[in-house]
């Protein structure tokens, strides 16, 4: 790859260009897009957790003045939709599977009329036996939610039957034999984790417009416009080319915006009403009927030798994925993260997810991560206590190292920054923790993400175009839901082409204007999309240099670019601006300068002497430390200091990179301390922002983030993923701090005052 002489923009904290319009109120999110004659939509939702729909009478609603369209399951084809498994319809057809499932929708001149019309729709249900507990759902005789499950289209081919959505069995070594080792210390515990809402500040919103010739355009708050286009096209029975999805700026995603729950509905309405139709969900709808992190029960057993080496692990995970599933299988695919950041020669994990009549499960920042980490990292502390070992010491002794096989058994770990993170954390603890008072304690935990070989197919491409004035336009399908993706795109293109960052702009996330992209997520955008942008920019650079070489009469190898100029390295007087070259390009035989990502990734890696399938080149690790106090009277936890060291490979934009980590830690603090969707008979009880408790400004501890940089081999400029890792180990860090402070172990997250108090009282009785 063409390595520029000295880095100009990579490593700089370039402010986000979109931040200007966001700060002044000019940024148009999906709910801000306006067209003349736009109708307002409302959704009628199921009032039962499990029921057969006997009839829907829409006559009165349709007769209400100001109503333009009413749609029900009758307007939806039998084809099921879904991001991973296709297990649902945009509007329920025969049965409803969860409280709040969309049953009908209305488009009217204003919100009041739409609301009134919704109330005029009469639905007759026949209630069916419902099941809410995943264990009960898997028991014989349980009501089956999806009788046709085996025939559903799924991205993977998991074991599934009855209400079992997915089961993953992961085994390395000989687990039973290993546990039989004489003298082995065995510790067993059960951990419970909550359902967590993504709780982005911007609710789901979409506006659809249908052309007179039937083509549909949807502006939507989504991170996966290309995937959603499929769901809209399938629901409307249109070819992909007749549906256009545009994702403007997105007000937070955290995994929740990409599943096409509302987009097909507004599209149906706009086609029927022949007017633009928009819908913004209420917060109650968000927490009642949209996706959340699946709750999880984990049973974990570990065997450790007296010298501290862990030799065996046996664990089961059971996840509740609700009535329809947008998780890709409950995060069961992440089952091997239950093994943690450790070399454990004998390990078995059985991860199961079950359909129940609860609200849908979906991706929430680091799918599978916080659940497994809460169990494993709590367990590590309990082992340390049994062995009377320093918890960080025991972790370091068993920590994964460079050259180890990944816990999944697939791939060799390279560029491991875990030891460096632990050392930095130790240094910080030595000089920053201060005195530890009564009821005060310190918790530690490790984090891991992306311990797998990166895929061959990146499901992304890009085009880099150089304009007549020397400006650079990058066309990419990637969305920016706040993570600064578009800024990274600009920085990478500017760096490769040697043009000032101000001259680079991005056209993004429009299925008709930009190349295919699978969607932002998994902490993979900088790594995956960053590489694609690099390749496309390198292609444009080659074309630029070829033209410059012809004009200047200098060999291409002699040429370099910097500050928007191409120049000869040996004769500085021979130079042309990028604009001068671009102006002649149009008339040249090679045509305008357009770069595409032509390089085969598999080949690029092989050229470096490595095999892609064997190389885990961008593993992400972090070490977390919390100092906290517990009020023994109320059970309230106060976190005073929080520290994390994280290996980011290379910080392409250090300020944004730290911002991701700070936000991730606080996201994790919510999961650790207060966030939990409470439910009774399938109805979510705290579907609002005064009872679903998010972290607020006064509760934020003094937070220190240290960036560790152990570059990846194949990420752009050495970058690794950043965004998920910081939210993963926070709940365990807090639980470990609580035990250090007051000597009780809390095994259920979040650690609400009630739970801490109950644990204190339970200890008093024993």
């Amino acid at each position, binding site marked *: 790859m063409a390595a520029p002489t000295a880095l100009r923009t990579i490593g700089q904290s370039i402010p986000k260009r979109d931040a200007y319009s966001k700060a*002044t109120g000019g940024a148009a999110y999906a709910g801000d897009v306006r067209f003349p004659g736009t109708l307002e939509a409302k959704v009628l939702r199921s009032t039962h957790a499990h029921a057969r729909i006997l009839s829907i009478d829409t006559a009165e609603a349709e007769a209400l003045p100001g109503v333009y369209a009413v749609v029900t399951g009758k307007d939806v084809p039998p084809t099921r939709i879904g991001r991973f498994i296709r297990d649902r319809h945009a509007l329920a057809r025969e049965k409803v599977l969860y409280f709040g499932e969309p049953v009908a929708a209305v488009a009217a001149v204003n919100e009041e009329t739409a609301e009134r019309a919704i109330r005029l729709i009469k639905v007759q249900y026949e209630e069916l036996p419902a099941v809410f507990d995943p264990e009960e759902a898997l028991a014989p005789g349980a009501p089956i939610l999806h009788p046709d499950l085996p025939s559903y289209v799924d991205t993977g081919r998991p074991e599934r039957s009855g209400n079992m959505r997915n089961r993953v069995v992961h085994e390395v070594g000989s687990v039973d034999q290993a546990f039989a080792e004489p003298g082995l210390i065995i510790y067993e515990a059960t951990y419970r984790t909550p359902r967590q809402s993504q709780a*982005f*500040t911007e609710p789901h919103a979409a506006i659809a417009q249908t052309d007179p010739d039937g083509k549909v355009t949807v502006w939507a708050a989504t991170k996966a416009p290309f995937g959603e286009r499929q769901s809209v096209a399938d629901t409307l029975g249109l070819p992909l080319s007749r549906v256009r999805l545009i994702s403007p700026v997105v007000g937070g995603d955290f995994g929740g915006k990409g599943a096409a729950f509302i987009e097909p509905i507004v599209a149906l309405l706009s086609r029927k009403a022949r007017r633009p139709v928009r819908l913004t969900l209420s*917060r109650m709808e968000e927490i009642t009927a949209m996706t959340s992190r699946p709750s999880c029960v984990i049973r974990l057993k570990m065997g450790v030798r007296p010298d501290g080496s862990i030799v065996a692990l046996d664990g089961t995970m059971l996840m509740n994925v609700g009535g329809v599933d947008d998780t890709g299988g409950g995060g069961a695919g992440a089952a091997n993260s239950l093994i943690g950041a450790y070399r454990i020669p004998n390990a078995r994990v059985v991860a199961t997810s079950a359909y129940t009549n609860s609200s849908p499960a979906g991706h929430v920042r680091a799918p599978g991560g916080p659940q497994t980490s809460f169990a494993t990292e709590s367990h590590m502390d309990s082992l340390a206590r049994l062995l009377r070992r320093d918890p960080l010491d025991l972790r370091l002794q068993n920590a994964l190292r460079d050259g180890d096989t990944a816990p999944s058994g697939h791939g060799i770990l390279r560029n491991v920054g875990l030891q460096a993170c632990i050392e930095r954390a130790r240094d910080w603890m030595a000089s920053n923790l201060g005195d530890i008072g009564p009821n005060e304690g310190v918790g530690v935990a490790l984090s891991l993400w992306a311990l797998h070989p990166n895929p061959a197919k990146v499901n992304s491409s890009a085009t880099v175009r150089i304009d007549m004035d020397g400006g650079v336009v990058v066309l990419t399908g990637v969305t920016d839901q706040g993570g*600064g993706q578009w800024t990274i795109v600009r920085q990478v293109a500017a760096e490769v082409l040697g043009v000032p960052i101000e001259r680079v702009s991005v056209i993004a996330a429009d299925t008709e204007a930009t190349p295919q992209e699978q969607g932002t997520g998994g902490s993979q955008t900088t790594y995956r999309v960053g590489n694609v942008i690099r390749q496309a920019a390198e292609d444009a650079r080659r074309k630029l240099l070829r033209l410059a070489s012809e004009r200047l009469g200098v060999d291409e190898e002699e040429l370099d670019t910097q500050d928007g100029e191409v120049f000869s390295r040996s004769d500085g007087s021979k130079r042309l601006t990028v604009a001068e070259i671009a102006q002649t390009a149009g008339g040249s035989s090679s045509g305008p300068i357009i770069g595409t990502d032509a390089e085969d990734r598999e080949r690029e890696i092989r050229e470096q002497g490595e095999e892609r399938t064997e190389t885990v080149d961008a593993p992400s690790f972090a070490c977390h430390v919390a100092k906290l106090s517990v009020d023994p009277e109320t059970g309230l936890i106060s976190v005073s200091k929080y520290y994390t060291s994280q290996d980011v490979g290379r910080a392409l934009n250090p300020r944004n990179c730290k911002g991701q980590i*700070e936000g991730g*830690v*606080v996201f994790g603090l919510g999961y650790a301390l207060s966030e939990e969707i409470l439910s009774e008979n399938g109805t979510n009880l705290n579907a*609002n922002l005064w009872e679903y408790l998010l972290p607020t400004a006064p509760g*934020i501890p003094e937070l220190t983030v240290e960036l560790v940089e152990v570059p990846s081999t194949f990420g752009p400029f050495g970058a690794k993923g950043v965004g998920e890792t910081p939210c993963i180990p926070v709940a365990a860090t807090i639980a470990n701090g609580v035990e250090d402070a007051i000597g009780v172990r809390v095994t259920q997250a979040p650690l609400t005052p009630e739970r801490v108090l109950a644990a204190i009282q339970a200890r008093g009785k024993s």
Partner: protein
Amino acid sequence: MKMPVSVNLNGRSETIDVEPYWTLQRLLRDELDMTGTKEGCRTGNCGVCTVLIDGQAVKSCLMLAAQTDGHQVTTIEGLAKGDELHPLQRAFVELGAIQCGYCSPGFILAATAFLNENPSPTRKEIADALEGNLCRCTGYIKIFEAIEAAAVELRKS
């Protein structure tokens, strides 16, 4: 039936006909297409719809449009002086306080009102003052830093 409301909106005196049940948020977003005022919960919990009424931070989802009669309303669209950003806006942009940005107008306006009352706040005072505004992206740290930087800037001017 609509009723006329005389309001000074971002420095301009206007008379607007409003329905008595419209919230200020609805008037701004849906009737005047001033979408810098966001919508996140409509229950006064998230703060993304914060505006200034006579310089005080108010959640526009909890106030009726008719109640603005005779008052000054400042929205995020009215904070900059032409192309010159307010010091808070500049600090939010330059110091990474904006990720998804959906909460930013509300935070910037809440902080504007707060710094007017307390030009030299401690970190704790800033955090306490912003309890009514939720941010899901930043963990609040860069927001605190931006407000501290803007406070220094504002004290100079």
